[in-house]
């Protein structure tokens, strides 16, 4: 895997950061923003990435921002209350215990209340306003504010320290989908219609400084289908176009990959339907399969299996084109297997393992 240019930058005087025994592609990144088209498994991949990062030790915060309680469902725990809760312990590496994953279901309402309390010294006003529906109203007439509050929460967690120690080694954000990610992260423009001075502006500037630093990387989750891949390419182009000091692009995480295990020539032959059904029938017989009586008994079954094989080969060829488009982005690509037996904790650990093996964490 290529080493990112900024990999050798100092980690702003960090005293706690555990030095990993091996290099990963994203050394120095502490805020991982994970986006993807709906249906690509964005939340699952974000959770797997958090687990993978935590296996180096320390604490990792996994944060969701869309109010759907996806973290609780994935980790099979009750809906997350306000605040950060431990949701999993990561597998360790030889000689070192695994770290912990904390979950946070961030919502703009409590972020605004927190913000008002901190900056305006309004300890009870925030809650009263929330009850009246004012907070919802304010974030409604200024949708940009909602985003600033959420990215602000991620930036705060990334920078949070107790004494000189960082609270979290890394923060993984399950961000809005690809179609909205550029706007979501483009904090400066988002608040341009808002107050020109004062704490909210200062707040936005702080958020911006974290999001646009080498500490932050934006990862795209996709599957090998035309529309999600196209959206990924569009999203990447949009991020790259934001500004010269644009956001740091992260990895391309290709989810739900099914391996076909054929060579190029075999793929081409199978996709074209050039399969010897008689030979296949003989093979089935050799394997002890007798489907129907008579000498031609396996022909029917062989025909069906050949049709399946042809279909898989065509799918694999179509996916190869999509994979090449993704490779053209020029960022590291990681492949995650399709988990067929339901996404549970075991599945998450498998995906986390795959991310680690490929150097994503």
């Amino acid at each position, binding site marked *: 895997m290529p080493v990112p240019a900024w990999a050798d930058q100092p980690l702003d005087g960090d005293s706690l950061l555990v030095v990993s025994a091996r290099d990963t592609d994203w050394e120095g990144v502490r805020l991982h923003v994970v986006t993807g088209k709906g249906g690509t498994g964005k939340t699952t991949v974000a959770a797997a990435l958090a687990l993978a990062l935590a296996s180096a030790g320390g604490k990792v915060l996994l944060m969701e921002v869309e109010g759907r309680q996806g973290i609780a469902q994935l980790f099979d725990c009750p809906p997350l209350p306000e605040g950060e809760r431990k949701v999993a312990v990561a597998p360790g590496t030889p000689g070192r215990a695994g770290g912990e994953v904390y979950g946070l279901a961030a919502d703009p309402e409590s972020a605004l209340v927190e913000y008002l309390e901190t900056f305006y010294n309004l300890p009870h006003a925030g809650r009263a306003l929330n009850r009246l529906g004012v907070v919802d109203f304010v974030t409604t007439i200024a949708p940009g504010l909602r985003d600033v509050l959420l990215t602000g929460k991620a930036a705060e967690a990334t920078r949070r320290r107790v004494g000189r120690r960082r609270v979290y080694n890394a923060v993984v954000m399950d961000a809005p989908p690809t179609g909205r990610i550029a706007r979501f992260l483009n904090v400066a423009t988002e608040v341009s219609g808002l107050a*020109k001075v004062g704490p909210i502006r200062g707040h936005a500037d702080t958020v911006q400084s974290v999001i646009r630093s080498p500490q932050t990387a934006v990862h795209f989750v996709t599957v090998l289908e035309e529309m999600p891949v196209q959206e990924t390419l569009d999203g990447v182009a949009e991020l790259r176009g934001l500004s010269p000091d644009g956001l740091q692009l992260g990895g391309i995480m290709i989810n739900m990959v099914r391996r076909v295990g054929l060579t190029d020539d075999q793929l081409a032959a199978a996709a074209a339907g050039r399969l010897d059904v008689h030979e296949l029938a003989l093979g089935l017989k050799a394997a002890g399969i007798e489907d129907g009586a008579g000498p031609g008994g396996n022909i029917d079954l062989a025909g069906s299996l050949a049709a399946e094989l042809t279909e898989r080969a065509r799918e694999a060829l179509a996916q190869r084109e999509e994979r090449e488009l993704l490779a053209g982005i020029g960022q590291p690509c990681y492949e995650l297997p399709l988990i067929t037996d339901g996404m549970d904790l075991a599945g998450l650990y498998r995906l986390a393992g795959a991310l680690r093996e490929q150097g994503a964490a």
Partner: protein
Amino acid sequence: MTPRETAAAGDALGEVELRPRRLEVDRLLDDPRTRIIVCCGSGGVGKTTTAAALGLRAAERGRHVVVLTVDPARRLAQSMGLTSLDNTPRVVPLPDGHGDAGGSLHAMMLDMKRTFDEIVEAHSDPDRAAQILANPFYQSLSSSFAGTQEYMAMEKLGQLRRADEWDLIVVDTPPSRSALDFLDAPQRLSRFLDGRLIRLLTAPTRASSRAYLKVVNAGFGMFTGVVAKVLGTQLLRDVQTFVAAFDTMFGGFRERAEDTYRLLQTPGTAFLVIATPEPDALREASYFVERLSQDRMPLAGLILNRVHPSPAARLSAARSLAAAEALQATAGMDGNGMDGNGADGNGSRPEALNGGAEDAAEGAHHPLAVTALRLHGERMQLAAAERRLAQRFTAAHPGVPTVRIPAQPEDVHDLAGLRTIGESFAAS
């Protein structure tokens, strides 16, 4: 017969299985009383493509159809022979031999800002309309408010229905985190525009609200104070001028949202819930089914999209994988068999997969059979996992008719591709 057409053969043998009633899509499309079909479901389940396939099939069966999509999918437009879709229904020419039933197909893509602008222009005099359209707050409301897209989709649906130029409207709902947004968001927008708080905020511009203001005065000062502090006074002023100019239209907004909502409850509407056999998508589908029944909305059924049935389901996963392994073992270590780990380029000769005739006769090895058996086993495992998930849905909603649409090996690029999907609605 392609494997696509034998979907039902892929269902489990030898397992006790809850079988949902079959969703008769063609009967639904052919019934002249069906005037609106709403395709809903969570993001990424194939709503847009399904809506287009339904529209094409209905048109080719003789109906006059308009498909309203909200997803700016260029490729879908191209697959219908259009370079792009816009806010006006465009005719999609049916190829020769497919328009014989006398039907027609139109397609359009929702432009929410344009639709909002049109409402403003239609319901106020030109000066006031210009004033509203130029208002910065209106601009952000009409292009980025969460709920505007859903409201405008409903609005457009109402317009198309009133135009009465088509006898079937197929709607693809906006991509949202939750399928329920489509039902709730329009009311959120009208509630917001019509709401107490927006009136409070703009109270100083209304003389008549002075008495009202007194009552809520305690909260009001703090409210405008906070809003001004956080959002800035400029935005506040924009909102106030917007509300003043928009005043007479507020009531209309709520009324229209309620009208369309009622339209959706009439028997001429059919909701199709679309899901892929994945936990999240099916969970959303469950919520949606419950919500539809709560609101007495006519649910036609579930389209279970992208399933992997097998034409050789009689050969189980376990048996297939075991046979592949046994065959591989007898083939020995000659290095020409499949290694099964997906590594490309092991240098075998072009047609190695088919093996040589002599090899087969000697029973030496059968690489083709090994590969076919391994892939079949994996496919059967995937199909079984999909079936387990679908079963959970059926157990919770036994009365919901269902149709399964097989996954297509390649993406849809043309009307023929949409037609293939349409055919699988009818296959049984």
